[in-house]
């Protein structure tokens, strides 16, 4: 996905903000904070995961998402959020 498409989504940016604030969360928890439904949240999380920006861990039926700290893209986004939200 190219950069303009990636940053064009409000939901994706909000997900990144939420995960950088709380560390890790399941899909329903993220959806609740976003105020959007499960399906939409899941779709955007998959895009973020395909880009290597987030990763998930599975506990039975539960998937817990967190930022992928080893990804340079994640680091760049975290820097951006920090500067922007300061």
């Amino acid at each position: 996905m190219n950069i303009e498409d990636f940053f064009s989504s409000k939901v994706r940016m909000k997900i990144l903000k939420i995960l950088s604030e709380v560390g890790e969360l399941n899909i329903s928890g993220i959806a609740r904070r976003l105020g959007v439904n499960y399906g939409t949240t899941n779709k955007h999380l998959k895009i973020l995961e395909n880009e290597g920006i987030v990763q998930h861990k599975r506990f039975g039926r539960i998937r817990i998402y967190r930022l992928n700290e080893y990804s340079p893209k994640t680091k760049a986004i975290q820097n951006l959020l920090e500067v922007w939200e300061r």
Partner: protein
Amino acid sequence: MSPYRSVFKDETKLDINYVPYRLPHRDRELRLLMEFFSFLLRTPEKMTQRVMITGDVGTGKTALSQRFGADITREAKKRGTNLRYIHVNCREYRGSLFLSLHHVVSIFHPNFPRRGYSAEELLGILLQILDEQKAYVVLTLDEFESLVEREGSDAVYKLTRLQEIRLNKPQRISLICILRSLKAIEQLDASARSTLQSNIIHLDRYSKQQLTDILNNRVSLAFKPLTVPEDTVSLTAELAFSENGNARFGIELLWRAGKYADAEDLDTVTPECVRKAVSSIYAVIRKSDVVSLRLHEKLFLLGIARFFKQNETAYVSLAEAEQAYAVVCEEFDVQPHSHTQLWKYLRTLSTLGIVKTEVSAAGLRGRSTCISLPRIPAYELEKELSNLLQKERS
């Protein structure tokens, strides 16, 4: 009066959650506990252990377990073992295995969801987390009675046997169950009981001399030198001894007496301060019981306490209590819960022994529930709850 003068050096040393470095008159039990769990320092993956600690209120069960937890964790760290000591008060989680385990899991994953799986799955998740982190846990289930009462044999069986079916995998969770007496587990079926009853440490009630030693120890930690005379400690020990050797009662009494001394701008905590404190304390209802209530249970109880403060009657009807609760909700700017919810809260308060409920046949419209506060002064309870709720709000 000088606002900065105080007899206290560090009053947190008298807090209910403070665990002293040294536990007077519990050295033998602490050594025994260390002995039971010594394998955790050598071959933690090879086995698990289950220990029960029994004893009356204020005999040091919780303090003993927490001291042990801090000591063994420190030792394990020195040896490079990832050992966690986790203390769960089951009563705070309404005796629910699910909620107690959720608390444990949320120590590793703070935002772990609360819904969508069973207690058994949660136990599996906990083991998965421990496997991934190569961690071992000593899980202490304090007020174990409430878990047994609510969940019965099944929960105990799951807790104790789940690891046994993990063939060829490292053992991860050892248990300490804290309860007042073994009577509580008599209702369990034989197989669940047999998994628990192998190692039992019983704590006897403290003698007056032992209580004096414990109080002197706390005095040296919490008060400035020469502010607590021997007579004061002796009187406090006497009172704690008459409360079935309840050290916690004595420590709380000491703290209150110190507060009276400060309020009157005294240089020392006199026996008179202790007498004043004892008339205001309510040992039968533990502070921790009130603290652990949910928001609306506290609000409901506050309504009841205020009703009794304003009316010189022995009973309040559920309808009147509901009205008082609605006023409190308005004051705290929260939406009142429904009648059915209040009925559940009343049952919880009654189970905890804070209120007493009776069903009366009075009146033409059928039976009504009467609520009384048999053992706590309404004034004290109102003050305590108001402080707690203000704190929560801020």
